[in-house]
């Protein structure tokens, strides 16, 4: 039941006019909270759990919110459903399945059943693979001639499953309200331009 349904139901009982606005808002909140958290539109329950755990390893909760707090999995499911082409969508879903396959090969378990240190170990390996591919991409862009075809990696970085999940996790996190307001401390109204400020520490 969404908020509109809640109000419609109340209206049908003629109670709407009698209720204070604050109460109506409360009802809306309950109605939203009552929506099952697993109502993903493209991802299966298992895929969404895998993605949720992977995203939380990439951007974990610290003193600032993590990927789960920022509803990164929900955002990615929305992109898969409403934004991506079928090909793009299939590639991301395959990337999630690939994380599971790799977990099976390396750790003998589904990703969600791996211990935190096993998840970390697997993702460290995958991140290193992406870094190596990025190095190849920079040295020899895919459309450039290389003398020995063996020098060209089988895939370029953007095709790597971890690259895809990391890209979408970063996007979903740093454009979310918790990511922008708490982690980035994004200021909607800076109010002035200061061309050269000391930010106190080297990056």
């Amino acid at each position, binding site marked *: 039941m969404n908020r509109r349904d809640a109000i419609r139901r109340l209206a049908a009982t003629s109670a709407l006019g009698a209720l204070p606005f604050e109460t109506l808002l409360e009802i809306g909140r309950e109605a939203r909270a009552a929506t099952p958290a697993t109502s993903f539109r493209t991802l299966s329950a298992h895929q969404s759990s895998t993605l949720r755990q992977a995203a939380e*390893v*990439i*951007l*974990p909760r*610290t003193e*600032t919110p993590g990927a789960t707090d920022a509803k990164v999995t929900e*955002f990615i499911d929305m*992109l898969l459903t*409403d*934004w991506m082409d079928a090909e793009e969508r299939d590639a991301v879903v395959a990337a999630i399945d690939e994380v599971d396959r790799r977990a099976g090969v390396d750790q003998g378990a589904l990703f969600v059943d791996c211990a935190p240190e096993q998840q*970390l170990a697997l*993702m460290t390996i995958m*991140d*290193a693979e*992406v*870094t190596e591919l*990025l190095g190849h991409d920079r040295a020899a862009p895919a459309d450039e001639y290389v003398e020995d075809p063996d020098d060209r990696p089988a895939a370029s*970085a953007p095709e790597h499953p971890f*690259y895809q999940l*990391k*890209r979408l996790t*970063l*996007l*979903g996190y*740093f*454009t*979310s*309200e918790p*990511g*922008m307001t708490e*982690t*980035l401390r*994004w200021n*909607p*109204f*800076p*109010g*002035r*331009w*200061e*061309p*050269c*400020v*000391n*930010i*106190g*520490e*080297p*990056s």
Partner: protein
Amino acid sequence: MIARRPERQAGGARKIYDAIVVGTGITGGWAAKELTEAGLDTLVLEAGPMIVPERDYVEHVPPYEQPFRGLRDRRRQRGRQKVQSRCYACDELGEKFFVDDVENPYTTPDDKPFDWIRGRQVGGKSIMWARQSYRLSDLDFGAAERDGIGIDWPLRYADLAPWYDHVESFAGISGQAEGLGQLPDGRFLPAMPLNCVEEHARGAIAERWGGERVLTPGRTAVLTQAHNGRAACHYCGPCHRGCITRSYFSSLNATLPAAAATGNMTLRPNSVVRQVDWADGKATGVTVIDRESHYVVEFRARVVIVAASTLESARILLNSANAEFTEGLGNSSGALGRYLMDHTMSVGAAGTFDGWADRSYFGRRPNGAYIARFRNVADQHPDFVRGYGYQSSAYRPDWNRGTSAPGFGAEFKERMARPGGWRMSIGAWGECLPYADNRAEIDPAVVDAWGIPALRISMHWRENELVMQQDAAEQAAEMLEAAGARNIEMRTVGTPPGLCIHEMGTARMGRDPKTSVLNGFNQSWDVPNLFVVDGAAMTTSACQNPSLTYMALTARACDHIVGRLKRFEL
């Protein structure tokens, strides 16, 4: 078919305005202000709907309140805004200020893409413009006289300088005086200072090239202090979605309110002008199709000022052909629709800087730096004529760099919340020569949603533009190198014509009625009470962002109109 309805005053008499202004963009807004302030009873027509800043501006909606977080509703844009979405400003929130491509078709030859970016609403593209404001100089106005290419402008800098003063004083242009002959200083509000890396680059370029190459804060129509009742910029960033504090110049923020305050303006949105009507040697008014009802209404005036944007103005005049002017109203020269120009864009270079790790900037500056033209100023380049200017900025990348950076986890998250290492990019805006067959004409097979014949646009870059672009990319890389940048990458392939949105020249001014559409006061050689004041009037493109020049030309033309009307000469 609905019968035509002439507009009538109470009592049934035919209303005749002093002036009709077609369009409310940057030049229509200026025409409205100048004419109404001079006391003329002025009808201002706009093809699109009304924009109410308090309701329609969307610059303060954060990404997390946008359904696609700024990625845009891609499926909708592919269906309805395939062309418009190529413009950076046609984003998830800003897309409503761009036309629906299905309602507003045009055609091009298959091998000559042209991106026609359009805004149809009160304020036109002045809502989404990039606000860079530079004067032309006699290097530009005298270009044809010097190199023999194209026709001569019918005016010189001295004719326009007081009008640059006039429009700058009202609009508010921030910038820094440099005393350059090829890029005259204006009436500036305080500049937006360069950041530390840009300041360093300015010094390094000066050291290497002396006064020949100058990097200066961008000159922009954004207020750095309160001005004419408008507030100073608060540096929120996305100007192209509106500005509730009216801190950047647009028709909505500045000229139209001034025109409305006179009591002399009748503003009619949703008025798609079908044609300029003509009888006995003069324009009598315009025929309008109501955008919503499709009713046809005729309006009458003593003077008609067309300011519908370069290509729309040409289209209206081409569609106004009659028994006398079979090839388009005021087109005895055959130049109408021809000599279409745009600026070349997107070539240049970018690189990284190692130092200044503890330095950054505060605020989202709606501006950058500018490098004034240095080619073919004092000498002549062997490979090309005319020149280019650069827009540039140094910045520290945000979390977007994270996908290509190694790592993940808690430390990675905190690092991505901090700015990345400095980068600087330099991009060239190049002059386009006037070519007769870079042109727009009526496509007899296609009409828009109001049944009005659409344009067929045929334009491509020629050798001079392409050779110049190569040089511009190389010189950008050289300047970055001189400034000590590393990892320098050149970009030598530019965008197709149109996408710079500096299209101009389809009803050019000139000294000879045989080769130009307008005289030196934006006045039709053939129809003395018809004026075209937008980018269509440009004789050459120069390389500077042109809107400030359009404004100055419009104000000057309006002064001429008022004088002639008062002497009963129109």
